[in-house]
């Protein structure tokens, strides 16, 4: 986003010579391709692009991108990325994390990178399971998830990554899923956003949590189950052949969202809301919509930029150093000093 020059690249330019080692059929492959397809469209410069990750299946991502990359330690990628951006704000940083890395061991750092609004794209691959450690339940696993550490089903209530992000003060919250054709558009919007852009990407773990997102991600019934949001457009969904037959409206009695029957002709009359990506209140409601009675809110849910951390730090530096010149000799000899000069009272030998 910061490169003034648009670079001409193709998908191939973003592939490394390393063999990709995810399980066959893993949703990560699709996300990798989506990213590699998106970067040429952004005119990004591989030498100025950097992928930073923590630990987990998703965090192997940097090894497969022909850019600069740092595969760090579990949960701490946001802290590394913050240091990288403060040292060189011009680098285009993408952070790759998962539900365990980003919300369990690294939940603290995720909160702070979001509230500080460090300018980067944060892709959280949510597969609702610990993959790399062989299938334990994660902080986003649904109640009752059977796993090696919960043989008769998990009992904790899951965290909602997008709700966490907006609660932490994120100024961009997007959602997509691994095989969605719309994912590159969400990535592009995140990239265009100046500040920390949080993207929850539902990702199918073919081995330990297979097809857990099929309820909304399966092609069959996608129209009814997915609400793709677009700023300034009515929130319509349903059977695409029928030209969308439902919409999201506000129930003024309960101050909650509701699903109403709607057509292209009457959606305004029946109170279907127009998406306003700058509305934090609306974003909260869309993120919290329970799937089942409601479709899954996807796309750019919230996008309201605020000054970035790096720019604030740079501003502070400018203010603090105004009129000051670095002079090491002077600095070392600052404070209350005295001179021993060998005159009377100061014998020197």
């Amino acid at each position, binding site marked *: 986003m910061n490169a003034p020059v648009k670079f001409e690249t193709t998908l191939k330019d973003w592939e*490394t010579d*390393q063999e990709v080692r995810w399980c066959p059929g893993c949703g990560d492959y699709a996300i990798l391709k989506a990213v590699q397809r998106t970067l040429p469209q952004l005119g990004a410069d*591989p*030498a*100025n692009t*950097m992928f*930073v990750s923590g*630990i987990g299946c998703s965090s192997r991502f*940097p*090894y497969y991108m*022909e*850019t*600069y*990359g*740092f*595969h*760090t*330690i579990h949960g*701490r990628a946001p*802290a*590394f*990325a*913050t*240091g*990288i951006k*403060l*040292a*060189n704000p*011009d*680098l285009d940083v993408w952070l790759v994390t998962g539900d365990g890395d980003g919300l369990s061991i690294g939940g*603290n*750092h995720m*909160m*702070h990178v979001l509230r500080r609004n460090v300018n980067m794209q944060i892709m959280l691959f949510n597969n609702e399971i610990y993959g790399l450690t062989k299938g334990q339940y994660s902080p986003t696993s649904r109640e009752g998830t059977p796993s090696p550490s919960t043989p008769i089903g998990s009992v904790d209530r899951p965290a909602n990554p997008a709700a966490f992000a907006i609660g932490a003060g994120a100024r961009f919250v997007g959602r997509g899923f691994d095989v969605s054709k719309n994912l590159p558009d969400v990535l592009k919007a995140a990239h265009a956003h100046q500040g920390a852009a949080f993207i929850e990407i539902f990702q199918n773990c073919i081995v330990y949590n297979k097809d857990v997102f099929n309820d909304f991600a399966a092609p069959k019934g996608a129209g009814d189950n997915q609400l793709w949001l677009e700023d300034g457009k009515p929130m319509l969904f349903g059977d695409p052949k029928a030209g969308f037959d439902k919409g999201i409206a506000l129930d003024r009695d309960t101050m909650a969202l509701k699903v109403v029957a709607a057509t292209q002709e009457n959606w305004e009359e029946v109170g279907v809301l127009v998406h306003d990506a700058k509305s934090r209140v609306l974003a909260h409601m869309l993120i919290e919509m329970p799937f089942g009675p409601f479709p899954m809110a996807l796309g750019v849910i919230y996008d309201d930029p605020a000054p970035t951390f790096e720019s604030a*730090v740079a501003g502070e*530096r400018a203010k*603090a*150093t105004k009129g*000051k*010149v*670095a002079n*090491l*000799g002077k*600095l*070392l*000899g*600052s*404070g*209350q*000093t*005295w*001179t*021993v*000069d*060998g005159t009377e*009272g*100061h*014998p*020197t*030998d």
Partner: protein
Amino acid sequence: MATKAAENTNATETAPDAVVVRFAGDSGDGMQLTGGQFTMSTALAGNDLATFPDFPAEIRAPQGTLFGVSAFQINFGSRSISTAGDAPDVLVAMNPAALKVNLAALKPGGLVIIDTGEFTKRNLDKAKYDVSPLDDDSLAKYDVLAFDISELTIEAVKPFGLGNKDALRSKNMWTLGLALWMFDRERGPVEDWLKSKFKSKPEIADANIAALNAGHAYGETAELSGPLKQLSMPPVPAEPGLYRTITGAEAVSLGLVAGAQLAELPMFFGGYPITPASAILHHLVRLKEYDVTTFQAEDEIAAICAAIGASYAGSLGVTSSSGPGIALKGEAMGLAIMTELPLVIVNSQRGGPSTGLPTKTEQSDLYQAVYGRNGDAPMPVVSACSPGDAFEVAIEACRIATQYMTPVMLLTDGYIANAAEPWAVPDPDTFTPFPAKFLEAKNGPANENGEPTLLPYKRDENGARPWIKPGTPELMHRIGGIEKQVDTGHIDYGPENHQAMTDARVAKVAGVKVPDQEIAAGKAGGKLAIVGWGSTYGPIHQAVNRSIANGMDVAHIHVRHICPLPANLGELLKGYNKVLVPEMNTGQFKTILRDAYLVDAQPLTKTSGQPFTIAELEAAIEGALS
């Protein structure tokens, strides 16, 4: 040690060439400020000095209690001073609790100055005195000067219309005025300091100055009778040059700034507040014009991770903490070792384990520094032995980190961090620069297509890999914590590769060039070597010098480079019949020396949260030689 002064090891007990004064009061009484200003005046008078601030962990402990006592000890004189002194000659006790906690330390025959205004029934109860020590014979072996400092202060500041509570806040300045009179010090610098400190509240500045003058005037008047005598102490013979006082925290900060400049790098400092390390963050945050970026992270782990990220991006990453925080940083240190990135980790040690003694000093993180990581994770460790020395050691840490592409741990402790000493201001032109180099083009052999290749883990003559700044065209590469393939840096779990890379990391750190070990006092070979590291320098040095003066065959060896150890140290130690290692822990360096050289190093340990006294060490030397 502190001032570059001619050693005077023949000082006799009777010669009044050094005095130890301890100011003690409630933690709200401003004793640290009083001590700090007295230190400044003493330094300006040309005396050498060393200080020991000793304060409670509580910010405002309940008033008048024993655990709320805050003290500041200063040893100063017209000869070289290297410790804060064993037993005070003068104790200023601002309340009963301060008297109770500190009296035992006072030299028999020493002077105790007491504010009787605070010796109320209530305060005596809080200090657990059944009978006022002013009313029994418990002070018989001391000179006592007891008078109502509180009342005298209130009188002195009356013209400024302050309420009693505010007026009493000037009590510490009254006391300082008296102390300045006692040692024939100028009041001008303190007045200037007060005016600048209370710039926006001139009436407060004036009240404090009035209290200062009143205390000074009291000394002049009281001299006529009683135990109060004025003592003029001539300046210490010192090498000509510019001097200032410096604390360890200031010296570390300035050394880091100098080190980054010598490496020609911007510095990134990631920190999280912790006692006693926070002072470094507070100093560096004010030095942004030296290309310093400071970042107060959300926790200790984020602080070091951000610093490593900054190092990857081409800055000199620095982080600082104390024991418990260093423990949290352990995993990230391993990553810096694996990814072979420069990093300086400052550990201002305090008493442990766990939260331990946050404001007291100890050297018990040595094992943690040398061994405290998972896997075979070698890391250079350097230690500072005094506030002034911390400057040079910080530069040394920056040099090793950038020249060898490795994290380096710099050990100081709570004593060094807070203590002040005079410091001969060095001339930056005399420093040797060690500019960092970044790889600009591919460094590997041509591939089958005749194109050059990139080898991010190809090693130079130091065993260091190249530093490659993200943003450099054509040099894209990936690093991480998984074992790296030799040269290419690709992921490689292969058995031969892990053996080769483990060996390479060990060899790199073992091969860090460090200066040969010098002898601080005494001669090479003999009956006994006292081997120390860190802040025990002062008391060991004084004790060894005194013992030598008394005809004993003993030497002082003080080790700065803990890992790797100086190449000649093993041979040096084998030249002595006995090796005694005094440490403020349960014997950690002793074990390292035994391990490295199979020498029979004997421990002398102390874990009371207080530094060694010279007397303790003299006794130990005598014991070892008898």
